[in-house]
């Protein structure tokens, strides 16, 4: 009862109508979606210097606390004319190490200290993990950290986004006494008391923990030029 011609016209018209509707929806909603991502990034950066923010006040707090941002290469030299906030590490990590553009955020905290926040990105068990870690002016002692993930196992690897895990990083150091870069390890079975370079790994989240350890090592290696150059004794 339906001719082939009818079926062809019917399906063509349907597809065009749907395509137009979806295109309009996508374009109209894009500004909102982009803004959500921007606010989330601000919240993440603030969280690494231990400042709690909500979606509403993130922008305001970011302006207040993040006083300066710049971009460095892996030798620690500043790169001009690039906005740190717009850098996506996903693309940077695909480049050769010497070509990478690495963002640095500088925060003036309430107690007068200055924090240097660097960005991290790596692989977990199921997908990407990322985060920010903040250092004191000695470029060695951790002030705070923030980690998030795309889809680690709930209750196990996903715990890296929890306060319990992240707060362990505070006051750890990434260089040993002789100045050698050691990064921070996630220790299976729990870090020993007084271990300045280790935190407890997550039970049942070994691959995520190891991925996080590798992320810290790899990304901080990229930043090593910057860290050693700007170190204040």
């Amino acid at each position, binding site marked *: 009862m*339906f001719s082939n011609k*009818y*079926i062809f016209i*019917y*399906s063509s018209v*349907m*597809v065009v109508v*749907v395509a137009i*509707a*979806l295109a309009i*929806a*996508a374009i109209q*909603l894009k500004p*909102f*979606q982009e803004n*959500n*991502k921007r606010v*989330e990034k601000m919240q993440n950066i603030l969280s690494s210097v231990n400042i709690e923010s909500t*979606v509403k006040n993130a922008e305001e707090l970011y302006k207040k606390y993040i006083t300066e941002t710049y971009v460095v290469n892996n030798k620690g030299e500043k790169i001009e004319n690039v906005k740190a906030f717009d850098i996506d590490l996903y693309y940077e990590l695909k480049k050769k190490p010497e070509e990478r553009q690495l963002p640095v955020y500088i925060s003036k905290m309430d107690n007068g200290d200055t924090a240097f926040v660097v960005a991290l990105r790596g692989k977990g068990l199921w997908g990407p993990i990322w985060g920010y870690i903040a250092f004191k002016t000695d470029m060695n002692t951790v002030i705070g950290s923030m980690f998030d993930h*795309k*889809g680690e196992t*709930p*209750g196990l690897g996903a715990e890296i986004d929890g306060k319990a895990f992240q707060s362990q990083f505070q006051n750890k150091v990434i260089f040993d006494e002789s100045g050698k870069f050691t990064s921070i390890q996630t220790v299976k079975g729990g870090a020993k008391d007084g271990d300045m370079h280790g935190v407890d790994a997550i039970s049942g989240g070994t691959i995520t923990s190891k991925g996080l350890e590798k992320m810290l090592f790899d990304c901080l290696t990229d930043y090593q030029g910057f860290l050693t150059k700007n170190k204040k004794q």
Partner: protein
Amino acid sequence: MSDNISVKKRESLFSAQNLKLLKGPFNDNNPITVQVLGICSALAVTVQMKPAIVMALSVMIVTAFSNLIISIMRNGIPPSIRIIVQLVVIAALVIIVDQLLKAFVYDVSKKLSVFVGLIITNCILMGRLEAFAMANKPWQSFLDGIGNGLGYGLILVVVSFFRELLGYGKILGMQVIPDSFYQAGYVNNGMMILPPMALITVGTIIWIQRSKNRDLIEK
């Protein structure tokens, strides 16, 4: 619209017949516990109540409007490509819902991640379109969609209530189990957060429902 008005003339919009379409899915014809459809997402998004409620609303909107649209189009859809037409309608609606969630409830959309997109493959949708919307008037189809969406949502909310309560000690993100319990040795049940316990919770609901409503037990 003309269809709606003609329905109105013959019977009221919320006649007993039409209300049955809304209420049926809550009990005798529940999509999850009786028809056992849409189990996959029910297990995945019920760890906390907020995402479960948003997921339930998203599914309800998609079932209601895909039913409505397909029902309006039903006489013009060539039978040989009807499944494709149904899928295009569902997919378009799901993508729009997904985009809206990303724009306005970003934190929840992150938790739901792929499961909003997977509404497209939710059997409840195709099932209702094939079984109901292709053969019924738009208003009835719309009600059927709302009813099935609510029936699905009801189970999601019940399951997520128990999982969030026992798994995190919280309801809708608010701590309800007092600190004194934890000091006395109470521990959150980490198992509740994992999918197997969702399956067991759904199983328990099915068990309770069937022990109350003996008609549902297969002979």
